[in-house]
Each structure stands twice: as C-alpha cells, then as structure tokens.
C-alpha cells in the first residue's frame, strides 16, 4: 500500500485533482491574456483578471532542475529513498513539482524530456507525476 501523503484540496483546486483521477492534466488559463498558471488561484497572476478556464494540457515537459533526496521526509517515503524530486517545465509554460518515476538515478539530467503519469496512492487516489519519455531513461 502506497501511504504517501494525499493532498488536502480546496474548493478552488478540486477540479484539478478530480481530473487527475481521470488521468487528465488540466491547468488554469486566463481567458483574457491567455496565460497558463499553476498552482490554482482565483486570479490570473499576469493580468489580475478572474476569468480563468480549466484547460487540458499536453503533459509534455522537460526537467528544469532536480535533486536526489537521500533522507525520507515522511515514514511513507522510507522505502523510496533515494528518490528524485524535480521541477519540470511544461510545454505550456508553467513549472510543476514531481517525483520522477521509472527513471534511473544516473539518467536524470536537466533538459530530460518527460511525460505526465499517475501514481496511485491509498484509496486509489491518483497524483500527477512525470516519467522519462519512452520510459526507462
């Protein structure tokens, strides 16, 4: 059983997580200036308008930076160390955090092309993660 943390969602972010359960990655996009943003907010950080639309995105990204973490932050990570924590830059612009899954520790590098995938946790809750394009980097 994967007992890693389940996010505590808000009214604003509920749609993001619900879509993740269907294995869809959605981001807020401003209907006025077209800017994508992550994490979810009630306002566009670019033009400060409130007309934001949930928009499906490609899930294609590249590794912007990463760290190999050697100490578990929670007991539930004990069996996972060392694991990769990464900031990935989505094709659409925003950056997200993830753990790179199915990725060899020696293969990870800045610029590595990655694709969204979903990690199943307790209660079948799916958390968006990323893995190398083509797998097994």
């Amino acid at each position, binding site marked *: 059983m994967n007992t*890693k*943390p*389940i*996010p*505590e*969602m*808000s009214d604003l*972010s509920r749609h993001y997580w619900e879509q993740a359960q269907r294995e869809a990655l959605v981001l807020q996009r401003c209907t006025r200036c077209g800017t994508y*943003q*992550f*994490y979810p907010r009630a306002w566009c950080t670019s033009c400060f308008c409130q007309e934001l639309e949930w928009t499906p995105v490609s899930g294609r990204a590249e590794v*912007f*930076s*990463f*760290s*190999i*973490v*050697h*100490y*578990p*932050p*929670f007991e539930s*990570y004990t069996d*996972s160390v*060392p*694991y990769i*924590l*990464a*900031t990935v*830059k989505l094709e659409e*612009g*925003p*950056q*997200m*955090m*993830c*753990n790179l899954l199915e990725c060899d520790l020696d293969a990870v590098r*800045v610029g590595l092309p990655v694709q969204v995938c979903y990690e199943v946790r307790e209660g079948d809750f799916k*958390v968006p993660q990323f893995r190398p394009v083509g797998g097994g980097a």
Partner: protein
Amino acid sequence: MSTKPAVTGFYEMPPTRDPRGLTPLRITADVANRAIADAGLEKGQIDGLLTGQTMGDGFTMLWPTVVVDYLGLDVRYMNTVENGGGSSTGMLWRACAAIEAGMCDHVLCVVGDVWDSKTLSFNPPPFPKVAREFDEPYGLVGATPGYAMLTRRHMHEFGTKPEQLAKIAVDQRKNAMANPTALYGNKAIEIEDVLNSRVICDPVHLLEVVSPCTGGGAFVVSRGDYAERGPNPPVRLLGAAEAGGNRSIIYATHAPKYTTSMVKRAADELFKKTGLSRSDMDFAQIYDCYTVVVLMTIEDAGFCVKGQSGAFAEDHDLTFAGDFPLNTHGGQLSFGQPGLGGGMTQVMEAIRQLMGRGEARQVKNATKGYVANGGIVGQHCGLILAN
C-alpha cells in the same frame, strides 16, 4: 551633528545546542536586558518594539503584545517583522523609519528562539496550505530539497563547481575559529571535508546545510541626538532595500527568476540610492542557510559578474583578514542558526564590526558594510551600515 537614528547597543547570546530550561521569551528578556544596558539606557526608556516570530513558542498570534507583557514594557510603537530570514535587517530599517516618523525614541529589536527537536512537533507544520497541498505530496518538506534544485540549476547554467560552493563553508569555518561563541568553531574543514560529508539532497552536502540551534540577539535603535552621546560609536543606516517574490521557486514561471534572485533588484536600488559602490564595502554579512545562497547573493548584489560567483569565491580570501571579509562570525553554517532568528546573527556581526568590537576577528578599519538577510527565495532585505 547627525540627526539620523542609529544603533546604540546590542547583545547576542552565544548559541547553544542544549535548549534545557530556555524558552523564546526567557532568551528575549535576557538579550533585551543586556542590549538596553549596552546602549546606556534603562528599560523604561524603551518606547518601541520590533520582534521576530519564534518556532519555539509555536508561532502564536499577538506576539508583540506577548513580548511587551513579558518584559514589562510600555511602548508607543510595536510590531512583529515576519519575513523569514529577512526579518532582522527588516527590523533595523523599520526602527529607523518609526523614529524618523516621530513615533518613538528608542526601539528594541529582538528575537530569541529555542530549537528542541524533542518538543518541536507541529502537526500540521506551520506552512501555508498551498505548500501542504502541492509540496508535501511530493515529499518536499522544509528547505533543503528546494535549495538543492536551485544549486543544481545554477551549476547547469553557469558551470558552478561543487568545490566553489564548498569554499564558502571552508572560509566561514576559518572565521568561526576566531569566534569563541561559534557552535562549530573548534575544527577547521577543507574543501574535501565538505565534499566528503554526507549528501543530504544531491548536490547539497551536510556541511553546506545550516544547523538549527537555540539562541537570540537584540539591538537598540535610538534617536540621532541620543546616539551621538551614547556609550558606543553609533552605527548608522545608510540605506535599505527590500524585495518579496515567489513563495517557492518551483512555480516561478520565468526561468531567469530561478537563478537570478530578488537580491539583484534590491541591491541595485540600494547602491544607487546611497551613491556608494560595491568596492566601498569593507565586509559583507550574507544570509547563508545554504552555500548557494551566499554565491547567488554575491553575484546578484553585484560584487562580481552574474554567474561568476563560483570563481569569485575561489579567487578571494573570504576570511576576516582577507580581501573580501564575508560572514566574519562564521556565518550561520558555522555559528549556528538560532531557530527563526538566523538573520539576526548577520546583523549582530555587522554592528559588532562597526563598533570595533570584533576582537580576534575584527576587520581592520571597517567603516561600511553590506548586510543581506533572507534566503533569496521568498523574501530579502539588504542594508548598508556605517560607523
């Protein structure tokens, strides 16, 4: 005669790893009492208070009132300055501004904190909800993994080498060895010791990570006319510049924001408005929760070309006797980081040097210094101080 407010006295508690019998308020009262005496004042003359938040007291609300009540003060101005690592430099300029606004005459600026891993149990931790929702599920808790990613990106963009990052820890340790109160001042370290220490979050090693402890410090800012006749040489504020930005670099959409910190804008503004150049600074006290923070502050503050701070660290002697005296108390890396009062150690050391009380590690003929507080992600406040 100067009419500008100035620092008139200070006291810093030697940091300790043994928190037994200590509380944030007890430390606060002790360092406040000694700083007030150092300024040649009585407690009743203190009519302003600025204080920092504490981990050891559970991040409670109405904290300035709690401190006023505990110390038995009667103030005309008070507040908490809670800008993380940028809090203590933030207190200094706010104290000057309050005096210049006619709000009060003598402001006590103080922080004391207790770090006790046995009793420090936050559930949930005092992080914003957004961090609990989007950071924790990925195993990002605390600061080290984020700074590790920042370090990695700096290496990628500028070719910064592990040895260059390690040099910061090595030279600061030399300073700590001249500071009898530093927690880690008893053993010299070499670059290979840093690189051979445990990898916590690759590429960050144990000896590049700040170590929490118990401690605190206080200083008094007084009206200019008093400062001129006080018992200590007044330490004047020549300028301050502050900046706030992304809570987390993860979501900083534009790449330059990742490896060019908010220090750049603040420092450009600071040197412009004071009319001073970088070479006028006799020392720099720079917030150092991680070695990469020091390197990036050096370059973003304009002491070298952007991206060249690694080479700068290699080419300069960063000790108190060197050509770029940096974190002359040992930095938080070797002095200790007293809970949420880490930035206070840099402010204490700047005041100490400018009052000529640096003892074995006194920077010769120090007249002006740059002080940077804040972990460069989230918040920053830089000062230029002079005697």
